[in-house]
């Protein structure tokens, strides 16, 4: 069998990569791009030969693999490498992982929505297998034998007849000249032959992290670099009225003071208005900022108070509003019901607070710009910086550093645009450093929300009728000058996609005014919608004197797949996956429930003041159940144990999935126990970790993670652990105390 010779256009046609923007870059213009990526990332010149966009091999037998996704602790860098390396069949020690520049040829690099593995699993396998096939072709050519006579394994190609061997390094040059194989002719490994996929491979940056050798956004250095610290108008769309920078300019190290441009409407990722102090070091820039005297014109948003806004949302959801999903006739259902229960919930504004605040360096030269950023989305930086500078995207070169956490914050390109603006204005390379205060006060906030739920139950506790209403400012407000209402993708996160059997259903939604930048934070609208949903389910179970696990089992009902369009006339985005590939499957909810009931005895008689709570939620096409045990004594809430069961389909790295679940439990606890951003007179009140508190070690419970492995397509991992935590916790507090808390965070009611 000989590999079919394909020209590039044929290849694209056959591979389908053209449609997704992914391209095997053998012997094309892409090679140059790749070479420059490699140069930027490795000091030693091993002259690696480029086999495709993701795989290059040096004559020294080093394997250079591109990771095109951002690494922020979720483990994609390791996971992507595992997938390519497995199909390529190489030794792990020989791999150099190179961070890809911003480049559309890779496909989407937006490391957001828990997509790295689920969107790229198949394509990365093909990349590895394709390069392996090229190595085999090269060996066959070298030995002048049929392709069938050679086999690549463990980084050597063997002649099966003579037993001769050539290493990948020996073959690299010849392999790079081979035609790119037709993807349909590639044989992918059998699962049983995987050597990295499904294994707890250690994170690729582990050695550097424990020796302090990592480069995050804040760590980028270059000759002549200035550091900028910016004071941004505390109220969005406000601006500088007058500025006295004389004291600031006197501080040793301060080089320049530059006014930022007026904030655009919509704000998108454009810089906020304010004043930047540029200095030769961070401390001088910070001191310079403190010394600025600024009078602000705070603008129209200075009347905004989150307390009033949340009260208004709570009013809004009491009355009928826009229907976004419907089945049967809810009024008729309620009329028939034996019991009718209603409740209202609220979750405040939240902010990401990644350990490393946003950081970006830019160097503008002529109409080009080079950027180094701890960014989840280099392509967004390319697009929006090009706009800002009035140039084209091919002139913007973006290096992605390691990210010191992100949680959605660093998917926004604003801080790179600030750096680009300041570099252009100053003529110098500029690193924009966000302080913690900046991060907490000028972020892209998770929107505060209110939700109303009403259910009618029959004699057997079955749901006859279900009415729900929700209100919050939409993420779309950041991107559109007009309020276009809450968007389908927001409502598709645990609101329009319910998995329960119910005769009649109606869902309504009404957006609210946005007076801060609204963004997406780890698990997005699932946060509030899962909190209301699973708290309410628990309330219904208690109303029927049935344990919540039993009640859940009953309302999941018959094993089936749910199509929200057919069931509720709700156009469901399914996290941009086809329902055929990633269905909403009752059996998978049930499996998570079964796992938790095996691990936890929910009927166990507990000492007074203790209780278990449970919530199971599907998001980012994965299913996560959380059982939380708490103890409440004298108004003090202590979280004792958390069990988390996850079905995310095929698991690439069980250890990183486990660590993401641990992290998600802790992230969920932070927001459920203490997370709250207040806005007064248009400005954020909190400023640092003393008043925007996040979980510390003493508050951390025992966490037990249970993976439910199966052969389904990989689902998301980074986000889906978060949503079920808060409701499971509030449900546990109810079980422990009989008090139902419907507004987060819980430190409003109890010491935590």
């Amino acid at each position: 069998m000989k590999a079919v010779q394909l020209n590039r256009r044929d290849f694209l046609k056959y591979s389908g990569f053209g449609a997704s923007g992914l391209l095997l870059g053998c012997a094309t213009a892409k090679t140059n791009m790749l070479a420059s990526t490699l140069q930027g990332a490795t000091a030693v010149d091993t002259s690696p030969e480029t086999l495709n966009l993701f795989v290059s091999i040096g004559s020294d037998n080093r394997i250079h693999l591109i990771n095109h996704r951002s690494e922020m602790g979720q483990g994609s860098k390791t996971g992507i490498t595992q997938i390519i390396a497995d199909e390529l069949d190489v030794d792990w020690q020989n791999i150099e992982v190179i961070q890809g520049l911003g480049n559309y040829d890779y496909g989407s690099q937006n490391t957001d929505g828990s997509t790295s593995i689920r969107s790229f699993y198949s394509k990365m396998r093909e990349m590895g297998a394709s390069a392996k096939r090229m190595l085999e072709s090269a060996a066959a050519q070298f030995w002048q034998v049929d392709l069938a006579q050679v086999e690549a394994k463990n980084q050597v190609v063997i002649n099966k007849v003579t037993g001769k061997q050539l290493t990948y390094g020996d073959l690299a040059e010849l392999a790079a000249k081979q035609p790119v194989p037709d993807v349909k002719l590639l044989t992918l490994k059998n699962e049983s032959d995987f050597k990295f996929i499904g294994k707890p491979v250690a994170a690729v940056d582990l050695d550097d992290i424990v020796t302090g050798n990592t480069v995050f956004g804040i760590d980028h250095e270059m000759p002549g670099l200035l550091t900028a610290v910016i004071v941004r108008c505390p109220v969005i769309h406000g601006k500088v009225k007058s500025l006295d920078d004389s004291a600031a300019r006197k501080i040793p190290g301060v080089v320049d003071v530059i006014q930022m441009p007026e904030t655009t409407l919509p704000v998108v990722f454009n810089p906020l208005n304010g004043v930047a102090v540029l200095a030769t070091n961070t401390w001088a820039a910070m001191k310079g900022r403190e010394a600025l005297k600024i009078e602000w014109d705070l603008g129209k948003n200075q009347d905004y108070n989150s307390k009033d806004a949340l009260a208004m949302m709570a009013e809004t959801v009491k009355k009928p509003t826009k229907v976004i999903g419907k089945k049967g006739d809810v009024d008729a259902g309620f009329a028939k019901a034996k019991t009718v229960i209603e409740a209202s919930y609220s979750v405040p504004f939240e902010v990401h607070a990644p350990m490393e605040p946003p950081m970006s360096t830019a160097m503008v030269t002529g109409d080009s710009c080079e950027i180094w950023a701890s960014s989840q989305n280099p392509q967004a930086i390319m697009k929006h910086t090009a706009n800002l500078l009035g140039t084209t995207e091919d002139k913007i070169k973006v290096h992605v550093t390691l990210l010191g956490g992100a949680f959605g914050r660093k998917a926004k390109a604003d801080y790179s645009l600030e750096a680009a603006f300041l570099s252009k204005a100053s003529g110098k390379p500029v690193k924009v450093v966000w302080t913690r205060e900046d991060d907490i006060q000028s972020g892209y906030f998770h929107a505060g929300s209110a939700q109303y739920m009403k259910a009618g139950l029959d004699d057997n506790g079955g749901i006859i009728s279900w009415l729900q209403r929700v209100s919050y400012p939409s993420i779309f407000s950041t991107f559109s000058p007009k309020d276009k209402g809450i968007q389908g993708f927001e409502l598709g996160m645990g609101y329009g996609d319910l998995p329960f059997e119910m005769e009649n259903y109606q869902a309504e939604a009404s957006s609210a005014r946005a007076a801060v930048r609204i963004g997406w934070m780890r698990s997005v609208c699932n946060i509030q919608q899962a909190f209301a949903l699973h708290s309410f389910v628990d309330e219904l179970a208690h109303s029927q004197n049935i344990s919540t696990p039993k009640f859940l089992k009953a309302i999941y009902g018959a094993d089936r797949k749910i199509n929200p369009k057919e069931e509720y006339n709700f156009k469901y985005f399914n996290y941009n996956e086809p329902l055929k590939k990633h269905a909403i499957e009752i059996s998978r909810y049930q499996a998570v429930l079964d796992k938790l009931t095996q691990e936890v005895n929910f009927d166990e008689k507990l000492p007074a003041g203790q209780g278990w709570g449970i919530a199971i939620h599907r998001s980012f096409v994965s299913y996560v159940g959380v059982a939380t045990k708490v103890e409440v004594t004298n108004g003090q809430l202590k979280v004792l144990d958390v069990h988390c069961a996850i079905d995310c389909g095929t698991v690439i790295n069980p250890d990183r999935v486990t660590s993401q679940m641990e992290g998600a439990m802790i992230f969920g606890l932070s927001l459920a126990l203490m997370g709250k951003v207040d806005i007064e007179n248009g400005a954020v009140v909190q400023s640092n970790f003393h008043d925007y508190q996040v979980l510390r070690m003493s508050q951390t419970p025992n966490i037990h993670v249970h993976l439910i492995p199966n052969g389904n397509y990989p689902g998301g991992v980074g986000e889906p652990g978060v949503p079920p935590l808060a409701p499971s916790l509030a449900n546990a507090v109810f079980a422990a105390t009989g008090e139902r808390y419907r507004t987060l965070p819980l430190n409003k009611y109890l010491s935590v």
Partner: protein
Amino acid sequence: MPMIQLNINDKNYEVDAPEDMPILWVLRDLLNKKGTKFGCGKGLCGSCTVHLNGEPIRSCVTPVGIAKNSKIKTIEGVDETGAHPIQIAWKENNVPQCGYCQSGQIMSALSLLESNPKPSDDDITNAMQGNICRCGTYPRIKQAIKDASKAMESKS
């Protein structure tokens, strides 16, 4: 401005810095030692933890003037090869997620084990309470400290 003499990881340095500049920025911006991280600038998160004469301090709020004639130890001075029992325990437990807080975590853990080789759970929690990990690696940090404690005990 007079030059400030510093001893960092057993090497002597001379820096031209105002005395009120926090050690964090002297290390990072003037001496290009980037292992010590900035997380809050207010002594609230522990990312910037280094040792001053063996004691853990928050370098973001400690002016460099204080460090004259003292010994500073940073993450780069623990063991460049990553062979310290704490680093090994960190690796064996796959502790880090994003890694950003971990320099500070390791420096706090090191100081705990130096003063208290066999810490109880409460000792660990107390010593690590000032170090935030937003990614949520606390359970693994705790385990790694226990493992390192055991390893150091059998070594000594």
